[in-house]
């Protein structure tokens, strides 16, 4: 998996778009390099030279350079001059710029992002009404999905998409029976499967997992164990934004004080 895919799947950065500005041949080198490694949108602006000249001037861009803008569309976060026409050598660098400057979006929401996929592709005839038509797998609700089917039990293993039957059945080499949804070309596109995969790997939750302030060890509660974890992070110089409770960019005694106050304050 490339850095750009990790950016979307593991870090939750859905709101990233790349705009190639320049001539048509961008698609043949930079574009193809990018699309091989990402499911993020890519658009190419091949406006006339005088327009691109102005845009270059607007951003002060040189030839073969990536200018990374914040979500306000004007603040330049960073710029990377490239020696190659492909993006591969720069993925890690671009990834770091985004991660350091842009908060990740919330986790994938089952109700608004996953259930509509099943509604559009799976529940019209087959996986509905208790799933009696297709092995007892009912995909009309989160509860039914997680219950699985009568033959195999759970079809989703939270956190493990690779071994989840649902994902295996959506692929072109299902462990049993036919690929789903049945009948090409109704197979799901790679981006849609990737979204379901990411949701499972996030834990297959019914709602996005909201971080609990002070829950440094991410166990769902705030207690002395979080203080221990935070202390270890400070001693090992392991910065994690989750533990930076006062948001000053450093982990130190002030974060421990804040954490103690959270615990004492209930």
């Amino acid at each position, binding site marked *: 998996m490339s850095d750009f895919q990790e950016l979307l799947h593991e870090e939750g950065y859905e709101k*990233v778009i790349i705009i*190639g*500005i320049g001539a*048509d041949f961008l698609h043949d080198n930079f574009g193809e390099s990018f*699309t091989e490694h*990402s499911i993020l949108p*890519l658009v190419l602006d091949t406006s006339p030279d005088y327009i691109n000249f102005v845009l270059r001037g607007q951003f002060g861009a040189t030839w073969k350079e990536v200018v*990374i*803008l914040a979500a306000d569309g004007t603040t330049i976060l960073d710029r990377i001059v490239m020696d190659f026409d492909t993006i591969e050598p720069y993925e890690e660098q671009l990834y770091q710029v985004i991660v350091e400057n842009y908060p990740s979006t919330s986790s994938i929401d089952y109700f608004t992002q996953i259930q509509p996929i099943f509604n559009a592709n799976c529940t019209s005839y087959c996986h509905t009404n208790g799933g009696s038509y297709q092995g007892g797998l009912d995909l009309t609700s989160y509860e039914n999905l997680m219950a699985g089917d009568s033959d195999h039990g759970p079809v989703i293993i939270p956190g493990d998409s690779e071994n989840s039957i649902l994902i295996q059945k959506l692929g072109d080499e299902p462990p049993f029976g036919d690929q789903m949804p049945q009948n090409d070309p109704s197979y799901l596109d790679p981006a849609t499967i990737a979204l379901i995969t990411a949701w499972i790997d996030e834990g297959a939750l019914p709602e996005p997992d909201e971080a609990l302030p002070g829950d440094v060890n991410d166990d769902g509660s705030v207690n002395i164990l979080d203080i221990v974890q935070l202390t270890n992070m400070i001693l090992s110089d392991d910065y994690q934004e989750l533990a930076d409770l006062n948001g000053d960019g450093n982990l130190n005694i002030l974060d421990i004080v804040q954490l103690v106050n959270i615990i004492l304050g209930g």
Partner: protein
Amino acid sequence: MLLNRLLYVVILTGLAFSQYEYSLEDVNPNSATFGTNVWYPDFSDYITLHYFGTQG
């Protein structure tokens, strides 16, 4: 002639100081919005990577 030049300068100045907006087709076949036009400012809360290639 002078008017045309003035108009040209005004247009370029306007472009230079306006925020970059676009409606362009998503050409990544792996993207969920592939084939559809992606708009800014609809994508105004997106981080954007502007790649300036060598021009042909």
